[in-house]
């Protein structure tokens, strides 16, 4: 305690210097005076009295110094001294400081930005109470190898909720988009269906009003709405009057009863909910077959808060115990006997969910980890540059070091001083870097957002990000500071005091570490260049891929009549009318409709039985399907290879017909002519549907994603597709930019029916958006590789320039003795070539060892692609050679007289 108290007082002693100094002087002054008076009384002369008093005190200044040491903390004091001195040195060299701080800020900023993204996507806990207690339930088949699936039906949820005894609370939720507009262009809100206990179990509080509770979630309810805080701010300006007012969702209105706490975005990382409704309100949306009693509508997720003291083994055992009862009570009646038997063998399992659920995480965890590695390497290269600069500066500071050594500073003290300077630099870099990172990570989030998926991430810096940045700053300082600090304090006093570089016996040795630093930079940047090259080439391959349809100039319009109060009988006629009117618009070449649009991520597939000699079965017989109107293939410019397109004679009552793609023809019919043959779709659990006649064959085109290969597809006329018609997508091929006809199209739809909701996109953008991962990787790795290349250029240029300066006299002598400029040039360039060859060789080794990690993210190219490697090495060598050539040529052109007179 006493020690601590003293320490704090001494810490305080670092401040208020002036008053303390004054008091110290006064105290010693009075001491001396009293002593002198005593001495005088004893008969000494005035001179003697003063001398004796001073001697007894042990010298006034040294006594004061001893006192001062006790007053403050000597270590702290030297640190402050070092910082002040360091800051002064950095101010004296504004050019060096600016370059170093900026380089560091870029490096540290990039690292912080990627890390903060990784943090918020992968590591951050959910914004709820005690997230570590939460688990998510999954269901799996009885065999150990089966993977758990996290989706459930409402009957299962009710069973789990009522039967479980391991959770202190359970909750369930499902997501759905709602249209806020009442007809016309759609404005979507992200809806969250929640069980009555949702907010209470999570421990989320209301920012205003109250949240949904168990009483709100009773069968037959009329529904209430809770807004997210950000939605309340954006749409109601945070007005208190929003409470009690009504919100329209898909043309149903609900009273707003409250607003959730500001930080709560929901449970899925990467999105945020706008409005939450209780489960019981689904009935209002579902109509005839409500999902609440539906036993094969898998729309919700279940979370539980584990009771304290329940081990994971107990949890697993209890869930296994209740599983048979839960599943026996909820068997789907429409499944066949084997299906039902298997269903009852299912087991409930659980997985920790403290960081939330996330599709975004699945999509971007790997790319983010790779980018983290990339920016890490960039920072290393930046460190190497600064270490090079420090080494060069060390040469110019030789005299300073020598003088300080000569007046008694220990080498440790000088090293400490130099490292403090490095820490100052890296701290400045880190502070600026944090600014860059804030801006960079926001930019990145925009970058990974698409038209359909607006990504939302909580990017506020938490302790983890700040700790990471601090750690990076320290590591950086050590990396670029230690070698130069040791080097530059190893001074030979005599030669340094003479102020001559030429007589420094170590001047060649001085250049050696710098050469290896630059070689290491070359090696690392080769790794980055190869990585960037691979991502770039994969991306280009995907963009220029033959996707089988023409994406340019196609306007897509998603329409929705189910929420518009339009009778289902009138749907087809309404769509046909819109179709007819749209095709008459100027600038419109053709119009068609389909259930799905290509590469939208939606799919419909079924097993198909073909009437061929040896028909496929099981997984191999899976066919991807779509329902389209006549003119679909013409609009997308998918060539019809045989047979005919659909036409108006294909009605609900006429012969059932289908058009298949080449892959279906090849796989299912083994290259026989499929025209006129029949396929039958496998319905629920093995039953076969009515035969469908194949009337045409079209060329293959991408169905779900650009990466897919050999998808067998079949198309049906919309008139014969069951369940189709409430929300078709219009595809409109235009002769002008799609945006030019947008308002005309919109007014045409409103002219037919103003309550139909519509949403626009273009096919080109949809295809683009499906490549967001690849684009992010290609762009960012390209950007960082470019940055690395620039850093290497600067590093090499600096190193060779420095070497030329060191050898100026030698080169002058050589020229004076008759060496041709060409041979001088060769002499210098030999160093460049050595650095390059060493760097590229090592870089190639590292690349070949590590690049396999990228394979799963590449498309149409092997990770060890030699062409990419060769190109990267060539680009790097060329750039590096130019950077080295400039100072080399300058050396060769120097006037020998000037070079010699330099001494």
């Amino acid at each position, binding site marked *: 305690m*006493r*020690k601590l*108290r*003293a320490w704090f*007082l*001494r810490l305080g002693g670092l401040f208020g210097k002036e008053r303390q100094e004054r*008091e110290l002087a*006064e*105290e*010693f002054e*009075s*001491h001396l*005076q*009293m*002593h002198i*008076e*005593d001495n005088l009384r004893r008969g000494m002369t005035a001179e003697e009295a003063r001398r004796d008093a001073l001697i*007894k*005190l*042990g*010298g006034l200044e*040294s*006594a004061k110094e*001893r*006192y001062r*040491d*006790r*007053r403050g903390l000597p270590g702290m004091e030297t640190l402050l001294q070092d910082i002040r001195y360091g800051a002064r040195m950095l101010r004296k060299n504004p050019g060096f400081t600016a370059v170093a701080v900026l380089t560091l800020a870029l490096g540290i900023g990039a690292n912080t930005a990627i890390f903060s993204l990784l943090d918020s996507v992968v590591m951050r806990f959910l914004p709820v109470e005690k997230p570590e207690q939460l688990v998510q339930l999954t269901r799996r088949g009885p065999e150990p190898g089966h993977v758990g699936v996290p989706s459930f039906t409402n009957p299962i949820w009710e069973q789990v909720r009522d039967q479980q005894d391991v959770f202190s609370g359970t909750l369930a939720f499902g997501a759905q988009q709602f249209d806020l507009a009442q007809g016309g262009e759609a404005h979507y809100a992200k809806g969250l269906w929640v069980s009555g206990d949702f907010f209470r179990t999570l421990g989320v509080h209301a920012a205003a009003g109250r949240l949904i509770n168990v009483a709100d979630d009773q069968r037959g309810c009329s529904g209430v709405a809770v807004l997210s805080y950000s939605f309340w701010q954006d749409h109601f300006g945070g007005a208190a009057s929003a409470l009690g007012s009504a919100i329209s969702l898909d043309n149903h209105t609900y009273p707003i009863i409250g607003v959730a706490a500001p930080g709560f975005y929901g449970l899925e990382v990467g999105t945020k909910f706008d409005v939450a409704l209780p489960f019981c309100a689904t009935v209002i949306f579902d109509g005839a077959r409500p999902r609440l009693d539906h036993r094969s509508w898998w729309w919700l997720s279940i979370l539980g808060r584990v009771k304290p003291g329940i081990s994971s083994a107990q949890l697993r055992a209890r869930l296994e115990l209740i599983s048979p009862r839960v599943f026996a009570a909820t068997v789907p009646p429409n499944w066949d006997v084997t299906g039902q038997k298997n269903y009852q063998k299912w087991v409930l399992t659980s997985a920790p969910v403290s960081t939330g659920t996330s599709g975004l995480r699945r999509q971007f965890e790997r790319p983010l980890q790779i980018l983290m590695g990339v920016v890490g390497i960039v920072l290393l290269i930046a460190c190497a540059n600064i270490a090079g600069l420090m080494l060069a500066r060390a040469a110019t500071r030789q005299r300073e070091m020598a003088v300080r050594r000569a007046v008694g500073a220990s080498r440790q003290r000088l090293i400490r001083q130099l490292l403090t300077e490095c820490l100052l630099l890296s701290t400045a870099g880190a502070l600026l870097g944090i600014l860059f990172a804030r801006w960079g990570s926001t930019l990145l989030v925009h970058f990974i957002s698409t038209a359909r998926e607006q990504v939302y991430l909580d990017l506020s810096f938490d302790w983890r990000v700040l700790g990471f940045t601090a750690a990076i700053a320290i590591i950086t300082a050590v990396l670029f500071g230690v070698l130069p600090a040791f080097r530059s304090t190893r001074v030979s006093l005599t030669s340094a005091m003479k102020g001559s570089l030429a007589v420094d016996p170590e001047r060649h040795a001085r250049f050696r570490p710098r050469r290896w630093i630059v070689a290491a930079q070359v090696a690392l940047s080769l790794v980055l260049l190869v990585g960037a090259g691979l991502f770039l080439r994969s991306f280009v391959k995907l963009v220029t891929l033959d996707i089988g349809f023409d994406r340019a100039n196609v306007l897509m319009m998603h329409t929705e009549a189910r929420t518009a109060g339009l009778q289902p009988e009138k749907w087809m006629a309404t769509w046909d009318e819109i179709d007819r009117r749209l095709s008459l618009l100027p600038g419109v070449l053709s119009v068609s409709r389909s259930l799905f649009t290509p590469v939208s991520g939606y799919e419909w597939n079924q097993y198909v039985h073909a009437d061929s000699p040896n028909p496929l079965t099981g997984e191999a017989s899976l066919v991807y399907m779509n329902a389209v109107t006549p003119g679909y293939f013409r609009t997308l410019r998918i060539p019809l290879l045989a047979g005919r397109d659909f036409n108006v004679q294909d009605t609900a009552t006429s012969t059932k017909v289908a058009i298949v793609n080449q892959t279906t023809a090849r796989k299912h019919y083994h290259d026989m002519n499929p025209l006129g043959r029949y396929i039958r779709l496998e319905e629920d659990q093995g039953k076969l549907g009515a035969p469908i006649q194949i009337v045409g064959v079209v060329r293959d085109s991408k169905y779900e994603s650009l990466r897919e290969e050999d998808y067998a597809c079949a198309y049906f006329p919309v008139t014969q597709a069951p369940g189709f018609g409430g929300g078709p997508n219009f595809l409109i091929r235009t002769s002008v930019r799609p945006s030019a006809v947008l308002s005309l199209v919109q007014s045409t739809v409103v002219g037919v029916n103003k309550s139909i909701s519509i949403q626009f996109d273009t096919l080109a953008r949809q295809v683009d958006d499906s490549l967001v991962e690849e684009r992010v990787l290609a762009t960012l790795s390209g950007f960082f590789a470019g940055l690395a290349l620039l850093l290497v250029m600067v590093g090499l240029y600096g190193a060779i320039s420095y070497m030329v300066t060191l050898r100026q006299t030698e080169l002058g002598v050589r020229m004076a003795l008759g060496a041709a400029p060409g041979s001088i040039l060769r002499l210098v360039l030999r160093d460049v070539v050595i650095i390059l060859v060493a760097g590229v060789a090592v870089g190639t080794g590292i690349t070949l060892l590590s690049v396999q990690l990228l394979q799963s993210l590449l498309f149409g190219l092997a990770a060890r692609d030699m062409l990419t490697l060769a190109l990267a090495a060539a680009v790097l060598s060329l750039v590096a050679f130019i950077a080295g050539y400039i100072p080399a040529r300058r050396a060769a052109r120097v006037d020998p007289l000037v070079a010699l007179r330099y001494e």
Partner: protein
Amino acid sequence: MGDKADVWQGTLALMVLRTLDTLGPLHGYGIARRIEQTSENLLSVNYGTLYPALLKLEQEGYIASEWGLSGNKRKAKYYKLTRAGRKQLEREIQGWGQATAIVARFLTPKEQSS
């Protein structure tokens, strides 16, 4: 400064506390003279080492200081014992007594045998 100085530092604190206990508030010069006199000039205090020792005791809260006037109207900094200082003095006296007793026991028999 070697081991001797450490002992000196420790005993110096004890002597300072003891001096303030007997004489009441006193300035640095007075404390130094008093220690010299008590030791009958066997200990010649380097006055310069006294002040850091005073500061240390003050930082530890055993003594307190304030400015006052000396006998001949000179401004001087006076030190006085605090309650914690008095307790510390008792502890130190006890400790010192034990230490000397132990050392004495080591020394006595040797003197006899030789």
